Structure formats: C-alpha cells, structure tokens
C-alpha cells in the first residue's frame, strides 16, 4: 500500500494523529495560526513557530459527496463526504465528514473531531456533526 510519507516538516503532526490529537502551528512572530505544517510561517516567514493542540471544533467551509472515487480503495466507501473544515483556532484543513448521512452535510454545519481509519489502515482526523452542548 502507498507509503504515508513522514517528512521533517510534518514534525509532531502525524505523531499527534496517532495519539488521537489534532495538532497545528501558531506563529510567535505574527500570531497567526496555519495549516498544513511547515518550518516557516506562510504569512511572515518567521521560524518562531509553536505547536498547539486543537479543541477539534469547527464548521464545514465547503464539501462534496464523492460518487466516483479516485481509486478502488476509496470506491468501497462511496458515497462519502470530502470537506474543508474551519477550526475555531483559525486554520482550515481537508477531512472527511462521517457518522451522518452524506445528504445531511451542509456548508456552515458545526462539526467536532473524531478519529477514524483511512483506506490504508492509518488513523486519521475526521469530523462528525457536533452534538448539541458538546465541548471538549
């Protein structure tokens, strides 16, 4: 199966995922959060970066329900939701929305982090509809 590339930029990100944590970076020079992990801030190019742990709460920014998957492994999961989620800490990431009918997903929907298993057997950060009153 395709390798999960672990590169030096990724740092603590995939370790966090394996432990059930969603980690992201915040720039200590300009104060902005960003994703994906880098060795420099994409806003100001500073190297003064800090890793933080996300509470895992956010909103669906955009989504699509996939009917024609990119390969045989994903075809088994059709139809499934690919989404971009805006986390409350101020960064955006791609993910899958799970634990609900794909027809129920909406732009702006409140979601919360849940870990699941990818098609290669790896643990991944997914999101599910946020339960009323749910906090982390």
């Amino acid at each position, binding site marked *: 199966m395709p390798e999960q590339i672990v*590169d030096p930029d990724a740092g603590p990100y995939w370790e966090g995922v394996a432990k059930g944590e969603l980690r992201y970076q915040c720039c200590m020079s300009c104060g902005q959060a960003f994703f994906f992990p880098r060795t420099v801030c994409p806003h100001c190019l500073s190297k003064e970066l800090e890793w933080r742990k996300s509470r895992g709460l956010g909103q669906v920014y*955009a989504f699509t329900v996939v009917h*024609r*998957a*990119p390969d045989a492994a994903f075809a088994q999961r059709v139809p499934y939701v690919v989404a971009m989620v805006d986390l409350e800490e101020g960064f955006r990431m*791609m993910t899958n929305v799970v634990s609900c009918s794909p027809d129920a997903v909406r732009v702006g929907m409140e979601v919360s982090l849940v870990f699941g298993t990818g098609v290669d057997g790896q643990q991944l950060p997914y999101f599910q509809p946020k339960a009323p009153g749910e906090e982390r």
Partner: protein
Amino acid sequence: MSVRRACAVVGVAESRLGVVPDATVLTLQAEAAVAALADAGLQKSDVDGLLCAGRWSSTMQLQLAEYLGINPSFSDGTTVGGASFEFHLGHAAAAIQAGLCNVALILYGSTQRSRRERSLGSREAGLGYQYESPYGMPSPVGAYAMAASRHMALYGTTSEQLAEVAVAARKWAMLNPRAYRREPLTVEDVLGSEMISTPLHKLDCCLVTDGGGAVVVVSPEIARSLRKPPIWLLGHGEAHSHAMISQMPDLTVSPAARSGSRAFAMAGLRPSDVDVAQIYDSFTITVLLTLEALGFCKPGEAGAFVSGGRIAPGGEFPLNTSGGGLSYTHPGQFGIFLIIEAARQLWGECGERQVPDAEVALVSGTGGVLSSNSTCILGRD
C-alpha cells in the same frame, strides 16, 4: 510595467483532435506548429522563442525543440496547469519587448485520451499533498465541486444555472465543424448525467480528448510585414494563489480577480469593451467564478448572468464560441485553444459561429484547482 502592443498573434492552428490513437504528443505538436507557421506566413528558421507546457515530460522544451530542429534564444516552460499558455503569451510579449526573441512559438499537445492517462488523482502523498490524499478527493473535479458547494451556499446558485454553461457551450459547438460533441443538449440532460462529485455531474465536466495547438507570436515590426492583420496583445496579467484546494484563501474568489484587473488596466479597457470572451471551462463552475472575478458581473450573480441565453449564440455576451472544453475539445489542458479561438474570431474566420464586428477579445485561462489564472486582452486595429 506594460506589454501593451509589445507583440501580436499572427498564426494559430490545432492538430488533429478528438481520438487520435496513431499520434504521439510530438506528432500532434509538430502538426500544429507547421500549420500555425503556414497560417502566419513564416518559416521554421524564423522561430527563435519556444514556450510549452504539459504533462508528458519533465524536459518538454528540450524534447520539442529537438524534434522540430529549433534552437531558441528564449525558452519558457512555465507549467501552472491549463493556464500555462496564457502565462506564456505574456512572457513572450515581455521577451519580444526586451529584444530577447522576435518569433515565439507556443505549443501544447496531449494524447491523454488514447493513452487513457487522465485519472481522478493519484495516491501520491508527498509534501503538502500528504494532508489531502488520505481523504479521497477525486482530483481535480472534487476541488471544483467544493468551490461550487460554497458558491451555492453563499449565493443560492443552482445546478440548473451551472448546467446553462454546458448547454450554451454545446450550442456553440453545433456551429463548429471541429467540435467533438455536437448533438443537442438540454439542462435536463446535464442534470440527468452521472453524478461525479456533488454538485458536478459528468456533463458539468470537460471532455477527455487527444489534441494539440500552436500559436505564433511576433514583434510589431514582423507583424506589420505579414499578410494577416496583427492580433495585438493589449493587456496581460497572471496570478496564482495555491497548489491544493484546502489552501485556497476563498473558494469563491479566483486568482482571475488579480490577473484580470491588471490585464484590463494595462489595456485601458473595461469588461463592457469586450466583444467576445474565451474563458476556461474545465467545469461549469469555473466559468461562473471567472466571470465574477473579471467583473463581468457582481459576486454571486454569475448564475443569473449565464442563464436565459446571454452566453449562447445570439445572446448579448458571446462566450466560448468554439464550444469550449465542455463540447469542442479538451486534451488535458485547454488554455492554448482559448487563444486560438480568440484570434480566429478577431480575424473573422469563424464561419457560422462568427461574432460580427469582433474587435476586442478576452482570454482567461485557469489552471490546477482554481490555482492559477492568466488573463489576456487581444485586439485588432
């Protein structure tokens, strides 16, 4: 800071298009190059600039120049997806203006259809892509689908409005003898076609064909010595904002906003001055987003803009008069064909699909996943 009238398009041509199983990418580009040079009335020995892009090699310029026996003094392989050729037009203009070359050949070719090369995205997980590939987004359609979802949520854009782009493209294609798909198409047909990734159906997506194209661009002195009227580059702009869709700052704002404003400013023109437009139609949503970014309508209004026949033959805003990537041809990347059709419209060569008295043409190429855009404004005296 300006390449206004720094160069002119003087010859254009396509290769064989559609399903061409017995040609290589080099064959197709050679066909197009020979025909475009003949269209211009120039010889291969005149060519001293070469610009190309595509996906068939990591050393395309070297292999193309070798195949054709060209030794360029200016060589550019800017590769930003389907928009590369619009970037190339501006780069050729700058090189010609600087005296680095006088006759530039822009080339493209692909045999993706016959070699079944177009896929929905590999599982490559390197560098930034490791943060997208685990989630199974079919690429590029899934990215454009997400942009459409955002546009629909913000503005109430409907699937019917998206389908209007495909319906209009087919009407133009029915007037183009070289178009791949020429049978009548309705909104119902589009909505009834297979759903690929919501909200985009199969008929919201461009064709998968073989084909190549060539554009000859020259200095003003050479242009004025040739038979056909020069098609001047009046304005140019280029921009790119991301590689992966999850890094796009705003899914409803194409980089065409930046490149278009620069192109119009350089040309000293406004959207209302454009007689005919060729806007990259990789997907129906691409056209809506680009129309808004270029200022042909306000953000959120493109759905209404493309409806009611405005962009179809006989409408107020002739758009994608070849039939576009949706119905005419789309060999992986379409940008060069936008320039070819724009030039032909300004030369009056478009037969049944000719826009009467066309003097100013806009070309706007988009590449990647709404990643790059270059806008060129062309005009004739």
